[in-house]
């Protein structure tokens, strides 16, 4: 549907790393008992992955399941699939205390790409990247707003923020990636 547009309509900047708004992504907040059999089944059906362990994100192509808190997951699917996935989750979890909410339109997604991607994020997030495990999603702060990020490919991080502050986050990433401000020598 062309009338659905992401917050920044895909704007990008090239500095010592490339930063870009990644467009719309289907996202569902799913709260419930993460250990239940129904939950495992529901997540499997939605993303093809297992329920992620603490602080993990399970990636499967354009779908993923991320651990957000002890009773909350973030389910990622293509934007067009979000409504149907919510319905499927609701059905799968019927009879069990849970909450599934479509938050696809409440978020903005960014990619930070390049060998020094980490250096741009180090300026914004109080995170020790040395302790960031492979497949870990880290919920934290980018300067003055909440965000979450994970390593989505070799030399690439995907970062999610709230939609209303997309412009602010892009401004941060842009200025953090400006050539000449690399943190470490080549």
């Amino acid at each position: 549907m062309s009338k659905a547009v992401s917050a920044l309509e895909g704007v990008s900047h090239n500095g010592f790393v490339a930063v870009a708004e990644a467009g719309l992504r289907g996202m569902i907040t799913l709260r419930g008992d993460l250990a239940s059999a129904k939950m495992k089944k529901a997540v499997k059906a939605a993303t093809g992955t297992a329920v992620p362990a603490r602080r993990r994100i399970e990636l499967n192509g354009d779908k993923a399941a991320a651990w957000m808190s002890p009773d909350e997951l973030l389910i990622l699917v293509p934007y067009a699939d979000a409504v149907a996935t919510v319905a499927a989750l609701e059905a799968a979890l019927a009879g069990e205390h849970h909450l599934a909410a479509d938050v696809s339109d409440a978020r903005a997604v960014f990619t930070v790409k390049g060998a020094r991607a980490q250096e741009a994020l180090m300026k914004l997030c109080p995170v020790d990247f040395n302790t960031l495990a492979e497949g870990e999603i880290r919920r934290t702060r980018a300067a003055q707003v909440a965000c979450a990020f994970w390593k989505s490919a070799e030399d690439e991080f995907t970062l999610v923020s709230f939609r209303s502050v997309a412009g602010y986050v892009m401004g941060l990433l842009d200025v953090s990636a400006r050539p000449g401000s690399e943190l470490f020598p080549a």
Partner: protein
Amino acid sequence: MSTRLQKGGRLIDRTKPLSFSFNGKRMRGFAGDTLASALLGQDQMMVGRSFKYHRPRGVIASGAEEPNGLVGLGQGGRFEPNQRLTTTELFEGAETASQNHWPSLEFDVGAINDRFARFLPGGFYYKTFMFPRFAWKHVFEPVIRQSAGLGRVPQNRDEDRYEYAYAFADLVIVGGGIAGLAAALAAGRQGKRVWLIEQSAHWGGRAVVDAVQIEGTEASDWVKDAVEAIEGMENVTLRTRTMASGLYDHGYLLMYERIADHTPGDGRPRHRLWRMRAGHVITATGAIERPLSFAGNDIPGVMLASAVRDYVVNWAVSPGDRTVIVTNNDDAYRTALALLDAGLVVPAIIDARPEAKGPLPEAARARGLRVVEGHGIAKVKGSKRVTGVSLCVQAGEGAELETISCDAVAMSGGWSPVVHLWSHCGGKLIWDEAQAMFRPDAKRPATGADGAAMVTAIGSANGILNAHEVLADAHSAAGGKGAAPGAVCGEDAPMMPVWIMPQGAGPALRMKMWLDPQNDVKVSDVQLAAREGYESVEHTKRYTTLGMATDQGKISNINGLAVLSDALNRGIPETGTTTFRPPYTPISMGAIAGEARGEIFQPLRKTPMHGWHETHGAHWEPVGQWRRAYCYLRHGEGVHDAVNREIRNTRNAVGLLDASTLGKIIVKGPDAGRFLDMLYTNMMSTLPVGKCRYGLMCSENGFLSDDGVVVRLTEDSWLCHTTTGGAERIHGWMEDWLQCEWWDWKVYTANVTEEYAQVAIAGPNARKLLEKLGGMDVSREAFPAMEWREGTLGGFRARIYRISFSGELSYEVAVPASEGRAFWDALLAAGEEFGVMPYGTEAMHIMRAEKGFIMIGDETDGTVIPQDLNLGWAISKKKPDYLGKRAQERSFMASPDRWKLVGLETLDGGVIPDGAYAVAEGVNANGQRNTQGRVTSTYFSPTLGKGIAMGLVRHGPDRMGEVLDFPVDDGKVVKARIVDPVFYDKEGEKQNV
């Protein structure tokens, strides 16, 4: 004169000459120079004026401890006052100007203070300037302010940018001298994550100047090799031009990197503030040489002995042709020898010790130098430049025995470890009697999150001055395996504490002995403070301003403390030190603010329709971090006119309000109803599916905190609307109770505020507009007020709530945020024939006031309870408990005398000023006029053509028709009548069509 030597200079590159200016005069230096070395190389000894007496000031030191050498640097958006000459690297085209004088450095009117110095002792202003009373503010203070201050005021917006960076390390070693390098080698080999930082642009510290031999080679070669070896370790990060500015709790180390100070305008950030979290910190920050206190020790040309050595060795600059050395220790002899090596003249070494027979004095004698033992300087001759010194017996009262002509004096009073970082977070010090210094007490370090020591001091920062021992200390502190690197450096004979020179100097001499040359604090001032009972070191410091200058007393504190202790006749450790506070040296405000300026100063939250508002004349109003349109200005229109136009249009046709900022929280689960009954004052569990209900939330302290429409979505889920800016707060509030109090209740919440773009479509034509979009039955019969429907509206996935905050027929439509802009455009297009027009927050405010609806933040201010607003109908009597209920039972809250909500109408139809108070008879016990009410909202109503207001009035609802007096500006009194707060459409006919 001071001059550039023909040979030498470890740090300068003679193939790269640079030009710069000082007070408009063109000057030349070399790459590798500091501003100080470059100025001295051009015989510019006098560089500024002191703070209080405006005395001539020259460079004293060669590093961060420099108190005098401060200039204004740069122009326009890159001008900065108070730049320290000794730590600022020279760059091509640098424009510098001296400070604190008028009209010129050479001739300064303010220097008249110096002539009256005798009448201006420490703390003199506390004793005078008291009469007449107005005179302090209007006569004395302006004069003092003008004469004080230092640098010129920057006028322009900063052209540079700054940034933060987070870093984490097992160990941070602060200081890149041989101690820091040895520690980094040792720690690096263990595989720890190590950072080694150095404030200057160069590694090696003092040892390279002092010609120490390490591991059989020159210190400078050893340093080069060590740096190379460390650079080869992947686990060690090396960084120059990076100063540890402060150590804070839990190993938080603030590191100030000066990236582009020496390459201004090259596009890089000027400074970077590293927010380092260190597992442990090793301070290898070295030591600072102390001056000696003798009369005239502030005259330009009197310098620290180590600094003189630095200028000769590092920058090939001789501070003078004839340099007299005055000392109480052996180290200063190294300066004498370095001067000799450079072909300069040392007329005498004046040593206060009765005997100087160590290897260094002997070496000096062997080279033909005159060593005068047991003597001191009685007086320095000269005013803007040293011309000579007179000798006296140190043990005496200062009788002048002989005058030696010279143009520089190199002084050394011993060394003080740099203990700032050690102390910032609570590390304690002990007094080392033999070396006359405070050094870190390893038994009482600053402790970290785990309660264990988080700092270790090594090398001369730990009070160890011998290079060989420094290396051993560094190696072992860093857990080094095997033998430490060894050094050959010679043994220094013991020093002798000398706090004033000569020992028995009388008051006249003591008034000429400077302790703090920038702030003009002298030995006599400290003694006066002691005499007057300012016995605590903090009292003395504050009374005299000792150590409060831009150098924060790096060279003056210990000397001042010793003088104070002596005056109080007690030991130095009993007197104690002042507190060391961050930063170690001043850091730029720009760096402290980081990247947060301009567009990214703070997050600006935007709704999906923000872009439309921006291009259609939105007059913005910040609401929390959101920006909402207050009104939309059309060409040539004023704010007031725009608001009235928007209201009239909404009342007569149809208006659109971007209501996306309203909070939206889903509350779901078997216990959700029970939970909402606790959260809201009214009953939410009984709300039927498909319906909406207005609800109030109170704090546990009873005050009204938020309101909004609650929607029953399904049997076990509700959607709670909050105020703009209330979403995060209320969501957090819900989670707080669910996680911490009622954790066995089965309830989940989700904040879906930003998932939806929400538009209020209000006005007589609202239904027509929605019908035109089509897809959902919005008729009166199918869709009554206070209900909601879900469906597809004009092709948009929509949820519609039939709620009204304007009193008009109104629908609030929520669509996915990503489609919000398209939906808004569709409404405007479809609504054209119905006269659609967006309205802003002010129109919304006025329309709700016309209807007598309260507004959180207007009628409430954190002191108002729902009962005050006659909202009893929204407070359930049936519920045994809700948050805030117990609080509202307290005597003052249950009192019938509370001010209650009423409408107010002025007798003349005008608008009562906002916030005005209604007066009552008489005054209270404190003589304040009694009051009986106040205005909470007040507007001109374009609908009614007159002023309307709401307010809180004592017993208000029982006093309908009474007239109150509201004193306003200029002694005027507005008279207003108490009326029903519903001004418009009391029967609600318009919204129920």
